[in-house]
């Protein structure tokens, strides 16, 4: 726990976004995580992203479960809404919140334990429903908060701090997501904001759920030499498969950008993701090819990063269920709760 709150002193040349806010207006309270935790770096990337896309703080909802990673929504955007749910239930509660109010912007921050162990069923169904949210997994291969037990993402052979090796096969959220129909899948590294920030911008622009797995070293329990989720190991094995630029939906900018020889995906809100470099034959919109590419590269020990897959053609939860356009709190009471007579009529329908 730092001795002081972050000084209010600001850099004199601090820029403002289109809302007139500086990046410091997107901060939260001081982090209570261990000094050097990857999660804090991801927080900083989220802060930068939200500032750059000029997110109005009061239109953002921060959701999380339990874990060090799940504590982080407290550390960004003071002015946002938030809910810290039971362990593993972040996707479920978020689904409910989104069902009730489709007009807000949702980011769920979870951990490998929260999402791949106790919450894996909840996560899978939120993916299936294509709930429109940014789903961020801060992946450190351990249960940090409970002192470093292996999590479901720990690699075979990766050693704990005390020296025993993990023997169970890992669950890779990227492959899992792709296999059950995720419509936006990316992987990044907490130590690489240059890559992470554009990915997050694209994630916020996506039509449905954007699943972002971020390797985030646990500096206290999983940053030693036998670990496969340490800073050093990740740096040595990271392979950037794709390099992307995010171009916001501003027509003048779009018109001036040549699309010759560049793969680009137009996002739901009109922004464009440009893939600057792709491996030969790689098509970020072809699920099968992406999966086989990843399988091949990962079996040779590489940690493939980048925006790996995006499909803007799939309807999200609301579109698929043909729900009403307005958030529920905008509906008049009589409409939201039409009374006993209507209920009776409805029940009769099912008899």
């Amino acid at each position: 726990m730092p001795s002081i709150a972050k000084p209010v002193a600001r850099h004199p040349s601090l820029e403002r976004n289109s809302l007139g806010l500086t990046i410091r207006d997107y901060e939260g309270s001081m982090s209570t995580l261990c000094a050097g935790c990857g999660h804090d770096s991801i927080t900083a990337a989220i802060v930068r992203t939200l500032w750059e896309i000029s997110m109005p703080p009061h239109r953002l909802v921060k959701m999380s479960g339990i874990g060090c990673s799940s504590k982080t929504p407290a550390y960004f955007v003071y002015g946002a809404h938030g809910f810290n749910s039971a362990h593993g239930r972040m996707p479920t509660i978020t689904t409910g919140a989104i069902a009730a109010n489709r007009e807000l912007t949702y980011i769920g921050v979870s951990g490998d334990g929260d999402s791949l162990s106790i919450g894996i069923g909840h996560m899978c169904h939120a993916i299936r429903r294509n709930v429109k949210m940014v789903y961020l997994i801060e992946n450190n291969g351990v249960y940090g908060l409970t002192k470093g037990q292996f999590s479901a993402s720990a690699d075979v052979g990766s050693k704990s701090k005390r020296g025993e090796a993990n023997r169970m096969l890992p669950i890779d959220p990227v492959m899992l997501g792709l296999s059950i129909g995720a419509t936006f899948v990316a992987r990044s590294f907490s130590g690489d904001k240059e890559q992470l920030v554009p990915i997050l911008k694209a994630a916020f622009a996506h039509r449905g759920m954007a699943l972002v797995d971020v390797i985030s070293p646990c500096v206290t329990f999983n940053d030693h030499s036998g670990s496969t989720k340490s800073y050093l190991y990740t740096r040595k094995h990271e392979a950037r498969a794709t390099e992307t630029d995010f171009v916001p939906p501003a027509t003048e900018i779009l018109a001036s950008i040549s699309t010759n020889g560049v793969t680009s995906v137009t996002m739901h809100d009109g922004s464009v993701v440009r893939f600057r470099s792709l491996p030969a034959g790689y098509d970020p919109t072809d699920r099968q090819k992406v999966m086989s590419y990843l399988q091949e590269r990962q079996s040779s020990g590489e940690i493939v990063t980048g925006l790996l897959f995006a499909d803007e053609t799939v309807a999200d939860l609301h579109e698929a269920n043909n729900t009403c356009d307005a958030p529920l709190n905008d509906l008049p009471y009589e409409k939201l709760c039409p009374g006993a007579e209507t209920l009776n009529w409805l029940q009769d329908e099912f008899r």
Partner: protein
Amino acid sequence: MKPTDVKNPDYYHKVVDCQWACPAHTNVPEYIRLIAQGEYTGAYMLNRESNVFPAILGRTCDRPCEPACRRERIDAKPVAICRLKRAAADLRGEIAHLMPKIPAKKNDKRVACIGAGPASLTVANDLMPLGYEVTIFEKLDEPGGLMRSNIPSFRLPERVLSEEIELILNMGVDARFNTPVESMKELLASGFDAVFVGSGAPRGKELNLPGRAGTERIHIGIDWLGSIAFGHTTSVGERVLIIGVGNTAMDCCRSSRRLGGKDIKVMARRPREFFKASAWELEDAEEEQVEILINYAPKSFKVENGVVKGMEFDQLVWDAGAKNSQTVGTVFLPADDVILAIGQENAFPWIERDLGIDFDKWDTPIVDPTTYQSTRPGVFFGGDAAFGPKNIIWAVEHGHQAAISIHNYCHGNSVTDRPPFGMNLVSQKMGISEWSYGNDYAPVTRQKMTHVDLKERFDKLTIEVELGFTSDQIAKEVARCLNCDVETHFTAKRCIECDACIDVCPVQCLTITRNGEEEDLRTRLSAPAVNLTQSLYVSEDLPQTGRIMAKDEDVCVHCGLCAERCPTAAWDMQKFELLISYAGEEACANQHTAA
């Protein structure tokens, strides 16, 4: 860029902007912390070590430290460094037992100082504890130089001035008042081992325009202030014109206000941004309803039968940089007294020109800017006498340097043999997230000095206008200091490049990036490093990626968060202490931590 060499005392010294800017390199942040702890006596003595006259300077210093202060770059106004110095002096306790001991047994070296201004007094202050016998020859009947004769007592009370001068004279200085040196030749013949010329720049500039002659009501500013100080002048006419807008002009107009002047005009040739007087002096004068008129060039005096009637001025219009002007008209302004405050110069009619003391074509002595020795070995100059009018703190620094030279000279060592700066660097870590200095940032604004009520302050010439800070103001003002001497000290081999320090820094000082040339690097940082007067720290290559840690020192608030959030203690907060050498001591001998 090459990795920064932080073992060179200059690097961290430069980060302490105030200390670096102070001619005497006063350890400002340390004395401010001492004040914060209520250690006023300690704060006073620390000041005294380098600037010798804390109570005087706490009221009058030109304070080059303040425009340099880092706080100004993030919070509009610098720390009130100068007035905190006064607070230490006002609140200090007994110091007699802390003063340097004067050896009973002398070292048989006799030094003559000419003039009893701050320069000579500093030489005496430094040499007396080493056993020298110092004789000061002073033309006037009291010591202090311009501090007594020209700085008005409403800015610097006589009691304050005398007290600090006594501290030096009481070391056993042989002070001979009413004793002008009229021949350097004679003085040199009288057996002193070394001579220090601290006679100031006593000649006020004249303005020879039509109508100048035949009156006693056109005064040379510094002489006029002197005659007020010594009680010879006690009144002035109602309408006063002051010519010039430097420090002297400010003291002249404010003095006029106290001697009966009602309609006082300060006449400036150029627009306000080119004034020599500091912003705070102008403010103080204008508070006293003195009018400052710009773009007027004196043209002629009008004097009838010895009585001043007024002056004629050309009205000027300047181009953008105020280099060239055009006259657009003339005006006549009536006056009863005119005071000329357009500069002063040094003058040495009493130094014979065949002594080996060379003068340049402007008739000013040739003085070495490091050793302060003239072209005649054993004769040294300092203060305004050396390079023309400066200020008290420069006179003090010249005095320190000249004392080192004199000490070398008297012991047969080369005067160019200057003792180097030393440094100490000590970690401030007390525990996890715990430091031995107050690292929190206090969002308080600069405290405003309260002044004696406008009605009361003119009752007597000697009423000190500034009341000093209240204890509440002191507490607030000390909290504004950013502890720039507690340095962010980096050990590259420990860094795992987790970015924690970069993310937490409130003012975007830090960047991990690939190395490059400074010009390029300055554009590739978390925030562009546009202030070229501030250093860029560059580490050795980082172990994991070979990139470098860069720090723009410009607006670091020394909050220590980078060090708190660093998992490997690659960053640490370490207190830098500059070790300054004075005559007879090698500062490096006190260096207890290898940096």
